[in-house]
C-alpha cells in the first residue's frame, strides 16, 4: 500500500471491516473502497447498506466513534460492529 498523506486522497484506499452478525449478513469480513475526497463516515455507511442494519457501532482506526460527519482518509481502517457481547 502506498504511503499517502491524508490530503492525497482519492488516490488511496480505506479498509472496511465487518464483525459478528454484520459479517454474516454481508457475507464478507473485509473490503476496500477508494478514498474519495470529502468522503464522510455517514456516506460510507450509507453506501454499504447501513440503513438496513438493526443497530451497530463504528470505529475508525481502532477507536470507537459516533461522529458520522468525520472525514475519511486514505489508509483509514473503518470497523462496522454489532453491539459487543464479550465477558
Amino acid at each position, binding site marked *: 500500500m502506498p504511503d499517502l498523506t491524508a490530503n492525497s486522497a482519492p488516490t488511496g484506499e480505506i479498509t472496511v471491516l465487518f*464483525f459478528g452478525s454484520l459479517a*454474516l449478513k454481508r457475507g464478507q469480513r473485509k473490503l476496500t473502497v477508494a478514498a474519495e475526497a470529502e468522503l464522510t463516515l455517514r456516506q460510507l455507511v450509507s453506501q454499504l447498506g447501513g440503513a438496513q442494519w438493526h443497530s451497530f457501532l463504528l*470505529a475508525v482506526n*481502532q477507536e470507537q466513534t459516533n461522529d458520522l460527519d468525520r472525514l475519511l482518509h486514505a489508509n483509514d481502517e473503518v470497523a462496522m460492529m454489532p453491539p459487543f457481547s*464479550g*465477558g
Partner: protein
Amino acid sequence: MGGATVRTQEEDFSIEEEVDALRAVSRRIGGIVTFLGCARDFSEGRDVSAIAFEQYASMAETAMEGLRAEALETFDIIEVRIIHRITTVNAGEQIVLIVVGAEHRASAFDACRWIIDTLKQRVPIWKRETTPDGKIWESQHP
C-alpha cells in the same frame, strides 16, 4: 507465569497463576477480588452447548489496556489483570478473568465490578451461542 497483565488468548487460564502473578507485584496488597465468567449451559430459555468468541484484535487490545489504565487511575488499587479467551468454549468452561489487588477490599470490589461492566461496553468481542436450533449470534449482552 501468567503472561501479560491484559490479554486475549485461545488457551485456558489458571486463576491461581493469575492471582499469584498479581500478588508478586506488591506485598502491600491486602485484598484481592476476582471475577471469573464461565459458560453456563442455559441462557435465556435456550440450551447452550458451546459459545464461539470473535474479536477485533487490535482494537480489543487497546480497549483492554485502556480499561486497566483507567481503573488504576480511578480507584485506590495496586494492580489489575484482565484475560479474555477468544475461542470456542463448551458449557462450564472459563471465558474471562478479572483480578484486582488493593490495600483494602472496598476499592478492589468497586474496581473489579467496574472493569467487567465496562469491558462489556467497550471491548470489541462478540459471542455466538450454539443451540439445538443452530448457531445464533448473540446480539446484545446485559
